[in-house]
Structures are given as structure tokens and as C-alpha cells.
């Protein structure tokens, strides 16, 4: 065999090898009965992280009911409650998107409840801590007052915990010691500070927060860069110019994140929240800030495990039907295109193997719309094979020999396959990037499936033919 062909064959073998290696955990995991899987997921079996996550519609997950804390609303008229619930739902949807959880179910329930279902039981703790955060960002001035020493003495004597301080459940003795117009708040790094009891500026003016590399405190650390809108920037500038040399506490949900000293007037409304964040914490914090703050805090009142939205019975029936349909297609190709149809079938199987391996690799959630995307990518890949084989037949009919007919057939079929696939890939990429929920799930599998199908239909089948032509020197082609 010539060099080029050898290399191409090696590439195919490597791709298949890698795909099977990635797929193997899925076989182990999904051959377990569903109850066993849930049990193992609760026990944090490491296998969970090695398989394709399934969406809520296909495998069920955790069902949470949140109750709105009405005491934090200005009034409890139906209208106010309704608006707060709506606002909170938007925020929760944003946060869940930021978590990368596909097709979560978020809906209003009753008057003051929100029901949330998230696929997979695994990681629901983390999700809960993120969903329930109010994300109230405030800037408050730090009051350096000698009273703080006394207060801290009392705090340690009384065994007051930071959460007591946050909720304002302070013993009377300590409350008496607080200077007028101040409040005691815990710091993220430990310890307490006295701050003004009114926020100078809130996250209402926040335009965007993002994770940034490096900060003024530590080299190579991470920080959260924030940017305020025009109005916020003006206020921030006024605030900083009036309080040079004071410390400004950046408070998130009543916890002081950092309290840098104001060195000079800060125009432009940009700043940094520094602290010893690891990458995950920084990303989470930025996500929470960007998703806006809850109108009122919420607490979990119900938590349970639920089955798939589509119902186990439908999923079983659907899986069977798809298998039957797929087998019929495989059979038809062999009947209609004989040996060449067999090659096309091999390419289809290859496409499925690679697609699911990549889905496992990038941890893309598989949902019902996602399966629709897989079906379409397979249909288009069958189409690509049909186009190629019809072309080869046309070339053979013109009296060209096997090798030449194959070359010509592929050459002439290529532009149609390319344009059809690229058009759909671009549209799918757009749906994935800008769509939500079901539309997103459809976009990702379609995009991946088509990209892979270009590789399997055009590149891989051609190599099969080339190797076969090289080894057997066929006089005739069965097509």
C-alpha cells in the first residue's frame, strides 16, 4: 500500500479505538437496572462521570419544590408575589444554564412555590446551593471603630456563628455595642468587620461579571472582574472619590467577599472582587452574579427522586422502535446496493460509535430532541451514501472501470454532500449557541453528528474502497 493510504487507515483505526475506549463505561453503566444506577449515583460511583448524562425526559432526576420567603417582599399582594416568582424563575433558568444542566424543568407551582426538576441525582447538592443563593451584591463602607474589638470578644465568648450574624440573630449584649448606623458582617476568609448598615451601591447596576486571571493581591490567583452600567459607574465614581483611603466592602448575600482600600477615584465603573478562589468557585460566583439576584430568598420544602418525564414505558417502546427502524435501513442498503451497501452500513455504525464517544467525552446531555438530532444526522449520512453510490453507478454506466468510477463518483458527489452538510451544521451551531432547552439539545447532536458524518461517509468509506481496490484489484464492482 502507498504511504498516504497507510496513514489514512491508521487514523481510522485510532479513531475507532479511542471511541470504543470512551464508550466502554457506558456499556457497564447503562446495562445496570435503573434502581441500581440511582443507588450507585447516590454513592458517588466514579463511573457516573464517565458516561453520557441523560436528560430529565429520558432518565428522571431530582424533583425540588422551593418556597418563596414572603417576609422579604415589600407586600404580599398576589401581584407582587407573582412578579417575584416570575423574576426568580428567570434567574433560576439562567443559573441552571450556567451550570450546564440541559433541559431542566422550572415552573411555577401554586401561589408561592417553584418546582424544579433536574436530570440525574448526582450533584444536586451543588445545584441546590447555587439555585438558592439570593446573589444580592452590595458595596458598603467599612467602619473602623474601636467598638469592633469589644464586639469580637463578645462574639467568641458567646460562641456566635457566622450564620447567626448573617441572619441578624445576635444576642442583645452585642447589638448594644454596635455603633449607630453600622452592622456586623462575616468575611469570607474568616473574621468580622463593621460596615454601614445601608448599601452605598447594589448589584442592580451590574452589567457583567467574569473570571479574570491574576489580581493585585496574589500572583496567578483568580478574581471576579465586574463592570457597572453607565448610571452605576457615575455613582461608583462619586462614592470612591468621596471616600479615598476608606475601605470598601464588597458584600454578596451578607458575606464580605473582600474589603480593599480605595486608593483613588475609580472612573469607568470597573472593579475586581479578589479572594482565594479556585477555578470552580470563581466560575460559579461569576455565573451567580450574571444571572441577577432573586427577588426574595427561597428554601427547599420538598425533595424527591422522579422517573423520566416521558415515562419508562414510552422510552422502552421508543428504543425498540428505533432499533427496528435502524435494522430495516441497514437491511435495505445491503439489498439495494449489495457489497457497497454493506460499506455504507459500516460507515453508519462508525458514525454512531464516534458520535456517542464524543458525547461522552464532552459530557453533552442526551435528551429526546438530542435523539432527534442524531436521527437527522444519520438520515443525512445515509443520503450522502446514496448520492455517492448513485454517482458511481452513473460513472459505471458510462463504461468507466472500477477504480476510475469510484474516484469520479466521490469527486462529483462531494459538492452536494458538502453544501447540504455545511448548511445544516451552520444552522445547528446557531441553534446550539443561541437556543434554549430543547432547541439547544437538538443543535448539539445534529452539529456533531453531521461533522462526524462528513468524516465517515466521505473519508472513511473512500478508504475502505481504496484498500479493497488496492488489495483485490477487482474487475467488477457490486453496487
Amino acid at each position, binding site marked *: 500500500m502507498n504511504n498516504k493510504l497507510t496513514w489514512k487507515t491508521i487514523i481510522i483505526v485510532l479513531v475507532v479505538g479511542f471511541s470504543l475506549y470512551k464508550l466502554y463505561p457506558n456499556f457497564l453503566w447503562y446495562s445496570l437496572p435503573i434502581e441500581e444506577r440511582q443507588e450507585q449515583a447516590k454513592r458517588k460511583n466514579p463511573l457516573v462521570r464517565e458516561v453520557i448524562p441523560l436528560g430529565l425526559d429520558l432518565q428522571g432526576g431530582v*424533583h425540588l419544590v422551593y418556597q418563596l420567603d414572603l417576609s422579604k417582599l415589600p407586600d404580599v399582594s398576589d401581584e407582587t408575589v407573582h412578579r417575584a416568582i416570575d423574576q426568580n424563575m428567570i434567574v433560576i*433558568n439562567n443559573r441552571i444554564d450556567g451550570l450546564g444542566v440541559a433541559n431542566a424543568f*422550572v*415552573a*411555577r*407551582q*401554586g401561589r408561592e*412555590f417553584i418546582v424544579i426538576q433536574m436530570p440525574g441525582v448526582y450533584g444536586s447538592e451543588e445545584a441546590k446551593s447555587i439555585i438558592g443563593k439570593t446573589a444580592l451584591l452590595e458595596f458598603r463602607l467599612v467602619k473602623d471603630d474601636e467598638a469592633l474589638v469589644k464586639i469580637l470578644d463578645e462574639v467568641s465568648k458567646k460562641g456566635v456563628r457566622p450564620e447567626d450574624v448573617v441572619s441578624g440573630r445576635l444576642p442583645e449584649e452585642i447589638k448594644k455595642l454596635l455603633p449607630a448606623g453600622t452592622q456586623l458582617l462575616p468575611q469570607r476568609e474568616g473574621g468580622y468587620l463593621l460596615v454601614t448598615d445601608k448599601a452605598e451601591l447594589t448589584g442592580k447596576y451590574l452589567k457583567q461579571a467574569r473570571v479574570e486571571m491574576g489580581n493585585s493581591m496574589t500572583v496567578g490567583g483568580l478574581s471576579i472582574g465586574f463592570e457597572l452600567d453607565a448610571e452605576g459607574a457615575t455613582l461608583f465614581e462619586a462614592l470612591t472619590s468621596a471616600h479615598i483611603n476608606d475601605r470598601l466592602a464588597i458584600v454578596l448575600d451578607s458575606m464580605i467577599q473582600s474589603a480593599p482600600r480605595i486608593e483613588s477615584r475609580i472612573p469607568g465603573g470597573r472593579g475586581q472582587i479578589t479572594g482565594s478562589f479556585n477555578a470552580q468557585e470563581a466560575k460559579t460566583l461569576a455565573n451567580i452574579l450574571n444571572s441577577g439576584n432573586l427577588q426574595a430568598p427561597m428554601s427547599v420544602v420538598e425533595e424527591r*427522586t*422522579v*422517573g*423520566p*418525564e*416521558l*415515562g419508562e*414505558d414510552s422510552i422502552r*417502546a*421508543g428504543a*425498540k*422502535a*428505533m432499533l*427496528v*427502524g435502524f435494522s*430495516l435501513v441497514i437491511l*435495505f*442498503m445491503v439489498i*439495494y446496493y*449489495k457489497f457497497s451497501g454493506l460499506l455504507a452500513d459500516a460507515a453508519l455504525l462508525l458514525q454512531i460509535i464516534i458520535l456517542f464517544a464524543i458525547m461522552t467525552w464532552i459530557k453533552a446531555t442526551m435528551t*429526546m430532541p438530542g435523539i*432527534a*438530532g442524531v436521527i*437527522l444526522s444519520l*438520515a443525512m449520512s*445515509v*443520503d450522502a451514501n*446514496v*448520492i455517492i453510490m*448513485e454517482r458511481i453507478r*452513473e460513472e459505471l*454506466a*458510462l*463504461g468507466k472501470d472500477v477504480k476510475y468510477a469510484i474516484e469520479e463518483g466521490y469527486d462529483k458527489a462531494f*459538492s*452536494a454532500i458538502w*453544501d*447540504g452538510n455545511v*448548511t*445544516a451544521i*451552520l*444552522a445547528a451551531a*446557531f*441553534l446550539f449557541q*443561541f437556543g434554549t*432547552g*430543547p*432547541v439547544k439539545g437538538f443543535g448539539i447532536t445534529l452539529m456533531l453528528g453531521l461533522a462526524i458524518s462528513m468524516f465517515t461517509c466521505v473519508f472513511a468509506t473512500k478508504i475502505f474502497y481504496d484498500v479493497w481496490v488496492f488489495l483485490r484489484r477487482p*474487475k*467488477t*464492482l457490486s*453496487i
Partner: protein
Amino acid sequence: MGFSSPPQNAQYLKGVSMQLFKNTNIDFIGKKVYCYGLSLLLILAGIFGILKVGPEMSIEFTGGTLLQIGFKELPPIDQIRSSLNEGGFEGFSLQTQPADHSIIVRLKQGQQSKEDITARLLKTLQSSFSGNVKELPDRVEFVGPVIGKKLAMDALIAILGSLLVIVIYVAIRFKNWIWGAVGVLALAHDVFITFGLLVFLHREITLVVIAALLTLAGYSINDTIVIFDRVRENIRSSRKESLRDLYNRSINETLSRTLITSFIALITSSSLFFGGEVLFDFAAAMTFGILIGSYSTIGVAITLIHQWEMARKA
């Protein structure tokens, strides 16, 4: 299907190949009037269906009532489903909660009060699983839509954006905006008519149906582009023939591919009819959509472009 003996000079073809629709020479452009008439009829039927019947959106879009019902021993979910079907309930979703032997049923409220629905549902279940169902539901609550206005808007904007992407890409590749416009027009034609049919048949528009319509859109544009490609190629090889003959020849040359691909797609979509009631609508939308899609590819898309070319020359 027929077997044809290999062409005279195909000495390199092994044995006899099964062949469909070989060397046809149909004047598709000439059938313009019939095609336009049929499309117009279907579109009007779609509009009529949507205006008269009105799309019935599923609970994901409308919200409704959520009931949680406990059992002593949880029966298989398909039995519960068929029990509710027999009780005349439509468009509900069922979720099991194995941990406490209960189910969550989400139903559309319709005209009934919460109490009526609850009573009816319990009665239905008790008649099928007497003694197994708890007397009172664990929870009855109003539940809002999952796909609220904002999410639906976001999805719609993403879909419209992707259509624009298609128009632009196809227009660039075929060096004329009309190709992009007609490609998307054919796609919209297929999806709209299919949607209209589902509405007309009182099928509920669920997320599964939305997924089917997206799939159909992708199938439709790919189908059309393959014929466009053949026209492009034939224009390059420029024989001495009229534009009309060239277009007709392109459709005929790709006819076997179009029909075989559709046939294979139909095999798949009709298998899904046996995939339980959740997939039934997916199968119906796909099967009908593929038929419409192939028809519009063969009978409408190229004809429209020919019409436009003629108008430009006139």
C-alpha cells in the same frame, strides 16, 4: 422496484443491480400549475387549521394541574397510562416516584375546577387499581408553563436566526440570493404544512413535536440543496439546451437518489409508529413531512427558481 439489466457499456458492474426510476424524462417544470395548485391548497388548509381549530399546545406551554397520587404498591407505568387513556384523559404527562410509590400527573386544566379533575382522576385510577390507590392525593397544585413566553421567544429567535444563516450560506455558495430564499421557502413550506396538518388533526403540540419539526426542517433543506447542486453542475457543463430542459434534466438525474433517500427515511419514521404513544406524533410529523419534503424538492423548489429566471429575462 425493478431489476434492470446493466446498461450496454457497463462492463465493470457486477451482476444485476436493483434500480428504481432510472433514466426518467419527466417534464416537471411543465407540471407547474398542478404543483402550485397543490401547494396552495395545502397551505390554505394549514392556515384554515390554525385559524379555525387553533393549535393545541401541550402542558409544557400552557401549565395546568399537578397531582401527586400515592399507591400502596406502584403498578407498572404503562398500566397507569392506559387506565388514564380509558378514563378519557388526554395530553397528560406521567412521572413515577419509586421512592414513595407515587406518581406525578400533570394535566391541562381546561374548563374544570381543581376539585373536579382530582375527583375524576382518582375515580379512574380506583376503578383500575381498586384498593391500591390512596384515598387522597398527596398534593394538588396549579403548575405554570415550563416553556414560558420568554423561553419560547428565545427559541423562536434562535430558529429565525438559523434560517437567516441558511439563506446567507446557500446564497453565497450558489452566487445568487434567490437560491437561498427558495431553499428556505421550501423548508418553511414543508414545516408549515406539516404543522397545519397536526393542528387540523387535533394533535397536541408537544416538545416532541417541536423536535420532529426541527428534524424535518433539516431534512428538507438538505433534500433541496442536493438538487440545487446538480443544477449548478449542469450549468457549468453547459450543453446546448434551454434553461427549462436543464432544470428538468437535473431533477430527473437526481430523482432516483431523492426517492431512495425518502424511502429509507420513511422506513425509519414509520417504524417509530410502534414506539408508543409519546413517539406517535413524532412519527406522524416525520412521515408526513418527508412526503411533503420530497414533493416540494421535486415539484416546487426548482420550478420557483425557473419562474424567477424567466421573469428576470422577460
